[in-house]
Structures are given as C-alpha cells and as structure tokens.
C-alpha cells in the first residue's frame, strides 16, 4: 500500500514554479527524497502537510486529500523540519509532551510518552533542561522526539543530519534506520546527502527542477542497463583490451589494472567465461571479476542531468 499518492501536482511561489506537474507514489518503508538544492523537496513536504496550497493537481496521504484534510494528515504525520524549532520557555519534556497534546494525546499519556521518546532519542539526561540551552545535535534530537511523540505512521525528516558532527550524524542515521525498520513507522527522508539516503533508505524518489526524475529501489537505481563486469588484473595489459574485442565485447573504462568491460550475452556466467578466455588469450592473471555496480552518486548525477 502506498503511503502517499501525488498526482500532477503544481506548486508556484509567485512566478516561480517549485513543483511542475509532479506525480509520484511514496511506498511504505523508508524512502529517500533526493534532489539537489532547490529541487522542490521541501516544497513537496510542505504541500503534503498543507502548508502550501497547490496551484494545480493534488494528492493524498493515507487516503486523505492534501487540499481538504490537512488536519487528519498532520495527525498521522510527524515532521522534523530542517530549521531549528522549539517553543520558547519550555523544558524538553514539557515541549515534547505539549507536541503530543497538540497531536491529540491526553495530557497524562503525552507526558509519559514524552519521557519514553526522549530516552529513545538520547536526551534522557537533559530532559528537564530548557530547549534553548541545547547544542545543535541535541536540537536535532528534540525535533525528532517531538515528531515521534504521538506515534506517527509517517515521519517526514527534512535534512535530518544538518549541522551534526560526524559522531552525531552517525547516531542520527542509526536512529532513523532503527525507527524505519520493523517499528511500523514509514519514513520519508529528504536530503541532498546521498550517503545518508543510502545508509537509511530502501527506496528513493529523485526530484530535480520540480519534476520527478526517477523513483524505485536504490538497488534498481544503481543497476546498469548493459550489465558490465569489473575485472581486476594483476597488471595493466593493452593485450587484454584487444582480446576482449576478440570475444565480441568492449572495454568501457580503465583505471590502472581495473577494467570495466561489457561482454555479449545476458548470462553472468557466460560473460565471466568470456572474460577468462580473453585473459588466457592475452596471458594476464585475473584477480577478480564482479558484476559492476555504479554508486548512488553516479546514478543520481545521471538522472538529474538527463
């Protein structure tokens, strides 16, 4: 079942079109919303929450219309915004409990749940401190805690590792991964940091210039159409390139003694056999042969610049 369906959504800020006839389906699980700065990721999140009115098109979140049922959507969603945000004059536990009350929790439940969530987010020791005195990393955690307090079915995380040091980033990614896997919470992580997305998500939606560029599993996105092989030789060998051509294949790229080759035939075993035949013919030793995969960064750059 899809978490959200977006149909031909157009959002404009004055004359600037932030989302242009955007259609996508957000599946269950942990989904990365990828795109360069200014691609329209945050606008999409704002529109799903009802902060921004679409100029055209529409969509639904958990079956609720984004134009008319914003309250119902927001009750099922937790938002961790990109910017620092808190309510002045409150301690962490008061802040998170109040966020729960706003979501509709009875006060007693909200308070006990606030304690639980703060423990989970690693702020147990600092729960009675005023949020204004928190460090950047703690502020990121408290934003996550207030988003989680009412047990949302979908968590929207906008640049969750912004401003974190390497250790804080690791901890935040671990938290996100832990929430989004096996806890019944769907997560949509918006980020331009591909490594963060790769660490936490299973699926991605790629946005660029307000349009959908690609969507699907990260594995599918990284897969190459021609199924090339990465061959590691003992030493560089021009003769190997000739022998590959002799087998009906071609060398796509060479980096020192690493060759990326494309061989005819779709069966990996057959293609690997041809590589070994070319190696025998050129009298070089093969150290390794693997099916080539591109990095998410390569895939991202390709779809963004299409």
């Amino acid at each position: 079942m899809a978490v959200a369906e977006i149909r031909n959504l157009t959002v404009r800020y004055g004359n600037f079109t932030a989302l242009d006839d955007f259609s996508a389906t957000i599946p269950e699980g942990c989904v990365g919303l990828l795109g360069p700065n200014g691609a329209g990721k945050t606008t999409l999140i704002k529109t799903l929450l009802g902060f921004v009115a679409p100029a055209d098109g529409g969509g639904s979140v958990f079956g609720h219309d984004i134009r008319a049922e914003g309250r119902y959507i927001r009750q099922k969603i937790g938002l961790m915004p990109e910017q620092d945000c808190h309510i002045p004059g409150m301690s962490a536990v008061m802040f998170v409990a109040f966020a729960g009350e706003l979501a509709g929790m009875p006060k007693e439940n909200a308070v006990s749940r606030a304690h639980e969530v703060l423990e989970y987010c690693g702020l147990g020791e600092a729960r009675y401190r005023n949020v204004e005195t928190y460090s950047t990393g703690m502020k990121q955690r408290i934003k996550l805690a207030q988003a989680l307090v009412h047990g949302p079915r979908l968590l929207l995380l906008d640049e969750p590792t912004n401003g974190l040091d390497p250790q804080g980033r690791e901890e935040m990614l671990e938290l996100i991964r832990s929430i989004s896997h096996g806890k019944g919470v769907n997560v949509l992580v918006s980020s331009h940091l591909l490594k963060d997305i790769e660490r936490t998500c299973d699926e991605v939606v790629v946005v660029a210039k307000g349009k959908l560029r690609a969507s699907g599993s990260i594995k599918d996105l990284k897969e190459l159409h021609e199924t090339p092989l990465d061959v590691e030789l003992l030493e560089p060998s021009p003769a190997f390139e000739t022998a590959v051509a002799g087998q009906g294949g071609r060398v796509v790229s060479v980096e020192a003694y690493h060759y990326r080759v494309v061989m005819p035939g779709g069966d990996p075993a057959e293609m690997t056999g041809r590589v070994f035949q070319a190696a025998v013919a050129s009298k070089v030793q093969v150290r390794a042969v693997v099916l080539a995969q591109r990095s998410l960064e390569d895939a991202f750059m390709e779809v963004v610049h299409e």
Partner: protein
Amino acid sequence: MSEIPTQTPAQGPIADLTYRTYTGPLSPPVYRWWAIAKMTMRLAVKKKAFWGWGITSCWNYILMLGVLTLFEQRASDGPENEMLKRFFENVQWNTLFLDGYLASLFMLFLCTLTIASGNIAADNKANALLVYLSKPATKSDYLLGKWTGFFLLLLGVCGVPMLLVYGYGLLSFRQYGFLTQDPWLFPKLLVLMCAAPALLSSVAVGISSQFNQPRLATAAFAGAYFLPMVVSYVMFAIIRSHDAQDSGPLFSLYYAHLAGLEEGIGKSLLNTSGGFANLLFGGGRVRENDAAIGPPTAWMVWLAALGVIAVCWFFAWRRVRAVEVIGS
C-alpha cells in the same frame, strides 16, 4: 558444597529504551486552540512580574474598600455622624467601580507587556509555528489559542478584584442602595471586565505577530500605547483651550488611543466620569471634578474599539504562517 549464586548487575539500563509505537487514544483533530491557550497561560503565570503588576492593579479597590469599611463601622457606631450620612446619601456605586477600573488600566498594560506583547514574536524567532502547525492545529487555532491565553489572564487581573468588590458591596452595602441604584450594574461590570482585556490581547496579538524579535515587538506595543496617547492629549488640550465646552465630536479625540478607548468604554458603560474618591475624601459632598472628561458617545467608542480589534486580527492573520512563502 553447593555454590552460592551471585547476583550480577544488570547489563544496560533497566528501562526498555527501544522505540515503541504509541497505541493510546488520540482525540479528533479539532479545537486545538484550547491546548494552546492552556499552555500560553501556563508559561505566562511563571513570570513574577505578571503577578506583581496584577496584584498592584487592585490598589484603588483595596484603598476604597478599606476606607468604606472604616466608614461603615463608624456609621454603625454613631449614625448621627453628619458626614457619613451625607456620604451614604450621595454615593454612586458605579463610580467606585469606574475609579478602580481606571486605576488598574496602567497595570493591565504592564501585564500585557509582560506576558503578551512579545509572545508571538518569540515564537516567530524560534520557528515555533513549524511545531504548532505541523500538528493538527491550524492558523485559527494558533491565533485563537494565543489570544484566549492572554485574554483569560488579563481578565483575571481586571475582573477578579471587580467581582470581589462587587461581592463585598453586595454583602455590606445593600442598605445604602448598592443593589437598587443600578440593577444592571453586575452585567455592565461583566462586559467592562472583558472589554479592556479583549482590546489589549488583540493589539498584542496583532503587533507581536509582525516581529521576529520579542523586544522589538514589546517596544512597538509600548509605542502603540503611548504615542497616540501623547498626540491625542496634546490635540485635546489645544482644542479645549479654544472651546471650553466639554462636548462635541472633537472632544472624542481625548479617547483616540488605546488607554482612551478603555477609559471611554468604562465611562460610557457605567455612565459616569468617576469621582468616588472625591466623594469619599470630600466629606460626602458632591463636587465638580474639573479634570474629569465626560463619557464619550457610546457607539463611537465601541465602534473604534471593535475596529482596532478587527485590524489587529487582520494583520495577525496575514502574517502568521508555518513557513515563509515568498511571492505568494
């Protein structure tokens, strides 16, 4: 020999710290303004200055009641006392309330300055709107919740002493016409105790929402309170120097500012210019109070107050949003 089992300390925390989804009740996503109002009040009552100004605002009532109680005791000791007889013959009870109300207005302004004038600006500065509005609360909930929070606290400051004095008067001065002189006094007081808090809360919401810095918002609120006051008093003095008659539309300029509207509402509602203290300390003689300006035209002052409230709400409504949307 059997080995005695040793108790090993628990590895890790006692509590289960893994994430669990909340499965408890959630109320339907409506009427979140009341939760916001309660939290606004909860945070505001932590400010000591609010309590200080709030309690100080009762000074006139306390003083008048103290003297009244003394008078009553002396009257019961010697009913032949001429001065007391004259006092209770001439007393106008609505002037007691107007004097107390007018004396509390400046403290009410200070209370507003303490709890309300910078409140939404502080929220703007801390991006709190993102928290409020990402939950099932709307802009209306937010504004209404903030307004209600301010209003109820200011209503407490303005209304509690008024009600206590009314109760005391009802119990102690019925024989002196407290109840019969103006049977509508109680409903009038109920309206009066709401008017000034509603006006000040609306202005605080309107001004505070325009700023991202609480101090600037507070300064702007103070400016909006005092600058028109100075202008209107100066203009009124000029007009009065040319026309000694205490009437006419130009004389309404005296009330053309926030405190003036509050004063005008009080005078028009209770239909008096005050002067309870004059009677009290003047030996029970009704004296002309030269400094007192007569009540304004009721519809004019109410219309002006409602206009100010509407304008403030309009500006707050336009400005408050979860995110900055440029060019929309």
